[in-house]
């Protein structure tokens, strides 16, 4: 492909830059070949949700080096808030076939849920984490576990311990045909939403002043404080965004699966965290990548009848990465020296 005029070093550099996208494309192609289109779409959809949740872990970790154990449960609360808004406030019961109505409902649902969850995230940060900013590292970690328990129990108190149904606004019958397979629009909608949000986040971090403040704070908090960055505000915004994304994931989860339960946060939290580690904790693009990777592993296991071992495989992946490559696939933050 390289013409004679292109020197080998430029080609090499080009190849170097393209290595990641190329390997991702190769992986996707392989996955599509092995899994078939139906399972491929399943995995992409699941991955989209994991990625949204993993972003919250990775952002918070990037900025204050805290594994926010409560984040999985923030996602869970998000799914309940979405359920409540959708069924109680908007009065939805099932699919909406009128397209403008559907778009409006979904937009309102996203806007409200994301706002509520962002506020909740900021509130948790303010009440539970900020007072411990200078405390030994164990303290906020333990607090986060406590917060996770409290969130679960508050939800259980209000909505009960059973599985709760959520209105599936996008009709599940809508679909397109792709090479003989039926691909529901709902799945495409979930994937698209997630991708749009992730791109928006990347733009926010790289293009805005606040985004740059977040990046410098994660690199060196004291130095950026000296350079006039308001650390408390920056950390709070990180929580706002992370929790907002978890809220969005909650909406998407409800629309896609049509149900939620108070125990949702624990399992998906663990998986999303694994995704964040796989991608390189602290790295937003990595978290997204990790989310999709985990989803492919899980769906792959299930597709070939090894669903029983799905959890164990994911966990083994986590350990293998921690041992051999603690920086993850795209990691910037390293583990402590060996």
């Amino acid at each position, binding site marked *: 492909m390289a013409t004679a005029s292109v020197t080998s070093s430029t080609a090499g550099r080009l190849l170097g830059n393209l290595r990641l996208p190329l390997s991702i494309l190769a992986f996707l192609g392989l996955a599509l070949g092995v899994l078939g289109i139906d399972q491929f779409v399943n995995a992409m959809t699941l991955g989209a949700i994991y990625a949204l949740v993993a972003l919250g872990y990775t952002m918070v970790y990037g900025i204050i080096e805290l594994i926010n154990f409560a984040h999985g449960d923030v996602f869970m609360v998000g799914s309940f808030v979405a359920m409540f808004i959708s069924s109680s406030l908007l009065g939805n019961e099932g699919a909406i076939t009128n397209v403008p109505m559907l778009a409006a409902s979904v937009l309102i649902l996203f806007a409200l849920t994301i706002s509520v969850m962002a506020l909740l995230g900021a509130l948790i940060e303010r009440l539970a984490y900020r007072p*411990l900013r200078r405390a030994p590292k164990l303290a906020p970690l333990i607090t986060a576990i406590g917060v996770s328990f409290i969130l679960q129990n508050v939800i259980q108190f209000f909505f009960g311990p059973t599985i709760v149904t959520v209105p599936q606004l996008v009709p599940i019958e809508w679909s397109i045909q792709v090479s003989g397979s039926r691909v529901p629009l709902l799945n495409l909608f979930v994937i698209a939403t997630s991708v749009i949000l992730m791109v928006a986040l990347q733009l926010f971090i790289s293009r805005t002043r606040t985004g740059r403040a977040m990046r410098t704070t994660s690199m060196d908090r004291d130095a950026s404080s000296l350079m006039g960055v308001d650390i408390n505000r920056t950390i709070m915004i990180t929580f706002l965004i992370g929790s907002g994304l978890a809220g969005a994931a909650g909406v998407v989860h409800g629309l896609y699966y049509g149900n939620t339960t108070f125990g949702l946060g624990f399992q998906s939290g663990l998986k999303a965290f*694994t995704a964040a580690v796989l991608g390189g904790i602290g790295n937003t693009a990595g978290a997204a990548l990790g989310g999709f990777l985990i989803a492919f592993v899980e769906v792959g296991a299930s597709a070939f009848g090894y669903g029983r071992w799905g959890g164990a495989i994911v966990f083994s992946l986590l350990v293998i990465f921690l041992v051999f490559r603690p920086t993850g696939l795209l990691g910037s933050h390293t583990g402590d020296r060996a």
Partner: protein
Amino acid sequence: MSRIADAVNAPFAPVRAFFRKHRSFGIFVGVVLLSIALPLLTRVPPFDGIQSTNAWVNAFTTAAIYAMLAMGLNVVIGFAGLLDLGYAAFFALGGYTYAFVAAPFTGIHLPFWPMLLAGGVVGAIFGVLLGAPTLRLRGDYLAIVTLGFGEIVPITLMNADKFTDGVNGIGGIDKPSIPGILQFTLTNPWPMYGLVIALFSLIMIMIYRLEDSRLGRTWDAIREDELAAESSGVNIVIAKLQAFAVGASIAGIVGVVNAAKITIVTPDQFRFAVSISALAAVVLGGMGNTIGVATGAFIIYLFQSILLKQLNTLVENINIPVLNQIDFLDFQYVLYGIVLVLMMLKRPQGIFPARRRMREFAPLKIGKRGAK
């Protein structure tokens, strides 16, 4: 240094001095006195009305098992500063070790006493097995990996039904006996109570000794400042592994006792909630404070197993309109969350602060260059 002696003999200075010098003996005497006092207390109103003395003794036995677990976890969290969220897994492994060699499921019937040691060894092996790959990493990664491990162990026990009878668990586990003298039974809780009390004081003595040893100082140093500890010649990975192995082997030993007490082990007995309840006990009692942690475990166990039940009966009996609708037992679980958050925010040193931990958590009084 001899906190237990302080607690028991506060007004008697000479006695106190004696126990300070012979702390292990002091712990033993303290625990034995307490273990005699507790059943006596249950003969007095209002405690005698709640349940029979035998049931009380059984409850104390369970509480002491739980307290030993918390003390073991405290070695990992309080001493070495490592957050282990899968502690129940080691408890499970100890229990299954004994169940595997002393139940009709396998048809093997090994005696109980050597298996106590075997449980500890199995716990330690798995502690190292899990610790070796992860202890080189950041402390918070360890929390997640142990959390995952705590999930994987029950799942594996559940799925490996050829070896563990799956979800049914292994039942009919042999009860301990001293041949020719004493056969433990399920309806007489006293022998088990005695065994647990003895083990409890033994473990407490061992932990106090470790705390004051060269190894204990090493853990303190790591918890305070890893880089400085390395620069004092401490191999931090090995020291952490030791803490991990000690904690795990205590859980393994306690697991054996627990299996012999309940006579059944099932994967569901060792879920995340067990790890969290032990963590709550550690946080409540004060990280690093052995006796505080043991007390914290007692408080949490008795609170959720006895008090909440009584609260239910109480509000039903006196017919308070709103409270009547609330089932207080529903709050067993949220209790852990509240304990963890409130203690960390308001009283991180625990209700019974350890000397060292209290100071580490206290705000800095002297700045870096305050003396200048």
